[in-house]
């Protein structure tokens, strides 16, 4: 299979406007962004409650992450450029909640995503690497993202993306058999699972037993129709949660994702959490 070339185009327009923004370079003056933000106006980028994530405020709000590889975009997302006091530009990429369920969960207002700069993350179901790239932005160079994707077509896009981002490790394997990639993965702090298979509870459990450190956390997206289309969504969520609990994956939050099509929910939780000592 030939190595598809990536078109890194489309970023030029952002840059052009940044320099043409004109006027006094007030701190925080950005330009050209997407997801509801009109270009050219004053954009303020403020840190989000979750570490590593930022909000770009303008007429509309957008979720952004700081670009680990300035100048590179993954598909066609918009970028925001912000000038610091020392006249250096910081580049942020817009995180589209329609494309990424994690972004949707953050927008809805999840308590804790558990992803922080410097952590090691195992991402099952990495697909072409869109969400993976944002997670990699958040964890930064100290952290590491192990991206597992079974399909070859998405896999080659993933490999292309990871060539530029050195903190992402591409693994083209079936997540059902973590033994097959045991030599590539160390212990991780978080597992993110976006697979949409009927046996996904088992999948995440096996992976956790291999790689998730005790006291670690997980996030799993449940698509009710992928598990069992006959039952109602709430029933499906409940059943999945029970399955997870049996495997020592204790859910702390269940978040229905309203802005996605179909019935989706995000479940956040912890693994082998230290039991409260009864003194």
């Amino acid at each position, binding site marked *: *299979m*030939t*190595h*598809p*070339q990536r*078109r890194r185009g489309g970023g030029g327009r952002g840059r052009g406007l940044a320099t043409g923004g004109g006027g006094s370079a007030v701190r925080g003056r950005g330009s050209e962004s997407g997801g509801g933000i009109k270009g050219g106006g004053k954009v303020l980028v403020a840190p989000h409650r979750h570490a590593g994530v930022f909000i770009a405020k303008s007429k509309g709000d957008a979720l952004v992450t700081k670009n680990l590889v300035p100048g590179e975009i993954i598909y066609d997302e918009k970028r925001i450029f912000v000038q610091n006091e020392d006249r250096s530009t910081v580049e942020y990429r817009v995180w589209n909640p329609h494309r990424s369920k994690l972004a949707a969960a953050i927008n809805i207002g999840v308590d804790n995503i558990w992803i922080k700069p410097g952590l090691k993350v195992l991402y099952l179901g990495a697909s072409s690497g869109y969400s993976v790239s944002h997670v990699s932005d958040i964890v930064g160079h100290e952290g*590491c993202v192990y991206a597992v994707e079974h399909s*070859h077509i998405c*896999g*080659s896009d*993933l*490999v292309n993306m*990871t*060539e530029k981002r*050195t903190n992402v*490790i*591409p*693994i*083209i*394997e079936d997540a059902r058999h973590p*033994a*097959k990639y*045991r*030599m*590539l993965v*160390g*212990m991780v702090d978080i597992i993110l699972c976006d697979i949409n298979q009927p046996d996904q509870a088992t999948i995440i459990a096996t992976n956790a*037993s*291999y*790689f998730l*450190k*005790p006291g670690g956390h997980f996030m799993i997206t449940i698509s009710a129709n992928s598990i069992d289309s006959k039952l109602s969504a709430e029933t499906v969520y409940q059943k999945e949660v029970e399955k997870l609990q049996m495997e020592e994956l204790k859910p702390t939050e269940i978040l229905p994702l309203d802005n996605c099509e179909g019935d989706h929910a995000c479940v956040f939780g912890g693994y*082998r959490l230290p039991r409260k000592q009864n003194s």
Partner: protein
Amino acid sequence: MLILVETPAGFAVFKLKDEGKLANIEDLAKEFETAESARKIVKLKAFDKFDNTSEALEAVVKLHEGTPSKGLRKFLKANCEGETLAVADSKLGNVIKEKLKIDCVHNNAVMELLRGVRSQFTELLSGLGDHDMAPMRLGLSHSLARYKLKFSSDKVDTMIIQAIGLLDDLDKELNTYAMRVREWYGWHFPELAKIISDNILYAKSVKLMGNRINAAKLDFSEILAEEIEADLKEAAVISMGTEVSDLDLLHIRELCDQVLSLSEYRAQLYDYLKSRMNTVAPNLTALVGELVGARLISHGGCLLNLSKQPGSTVQILGAEKALFRALKTKHATPKYGLIYHASVVGQAAPKHKGKMSRSLAAKSALAIRFDALGDGQDNTMGLEHRAKLEARLRNLEGKDLGRLSGSAKGKPKIEVYDKDKKKGSGGLITPAKTYNTAADSLLGQKPAKSEDGEESSKKKDKKKKKKVESEEEAEKEEPSKKKKKKVEEEEEAEKEEPSKKKKKKKAEAETEVVEVAKEEKKNKKKRKHEEEETTETPAKKKDKKEKKKKNKD
């Protein structure tokens, strides 16, 4: 008991110090929480490092298949005599047991152990920090991913795109330099430019002789043909160019060297491009040739992008300006783009180029998809399609000929006269005549003004008309008619002096025709054969350019 741990850096075997701990799985996790306590439980016994990424890749691939690689086997044999080995994969364990006679264990306790070891790995494996492991891990994961995706560096189309870009650049540069040589040396020996028209030969000759005085002494037979050599030597003697110094000649010669080396390199590059095209896209190469194929890929950006285009797009790739202009102004769109230069289209007659271009584009689209997304490495599919295309071309040309010469089945098509139609384009210009039955029976017919009747009427032919004329008895002469068609029947015409002009070939009917009126026929074309049986009355010659027509009765 020993534990086998596979890492991106190599294989490690740990010795479990206290087997009793295995009994209590839950507490195991606690034991591994700190490095100190971890070291109490397991100790590194041996570590076999991978020499390079390819060795690591091989070992890992073998593991995937469930067999231990040679390195692993040696390592285990050396270190695991007489002990049980804890492994992560039970299948692997079985194979090791068979081949190496080492007992293997795999259960929940083992999994917990492995978890613990993995979490404290960097501590336990002294001398190998996290930052050492990271690049190895990255390298191994990328090689493994590429292996899985069957990525072969041979099939990268970037080389092709760059090579064809360079080829075009080289051609431009070569031409520029060659022109410069001519101009520069022309100061000294202007006649040479006209004598030798080829750039490379010019450069070689200049390099050989330097100053034109040397021309007479030297032998150019390796470079030039005899007559040219003779011309050269002659012109050298009587040349009107100025003298140049040796230093100048030195620089001119250096430039010639450049030209020659560039042209050599261009030939090499072309060969390289050909070999790359045959590796990357063998079927496309079989269909359209290396150069056109490379240009198509370069135009499309990459082979994968090109494979997403339909055949109609492939047909007009390269003619976008003409295409959109035609679409905007609602005119006819172009029939071919880059594909015009393919040999299949080049061989076709101009009439058929459009059809061949369309068929070729359709087959090429299939070939491109096969090359980009398929697994095959050969070009059988391309060759088959090419054979089909050539058969179609033969078919098209055969049909054309058949139509013009008439077939046994039926009458050939009679073409409408078109003054703009090119003559001499194969086949007959005028089709064979058919018998016009309209004017068969003449009994009781009055001489009329119609086509049938033609009396004395002056005819002035227009250039463009043909008429079917049948003459009948005409009482009066001097009918002049214009004839649009060449079918003419002459019959008894008494005293007529029609002068008719015929522009095209005319065949006369075999009926008893007594041509009373004399006609002069003038043909514009030479292919006319007349058979006039009748006497010719004094005919009037008329010019070809008469435009009026009179019919008189």
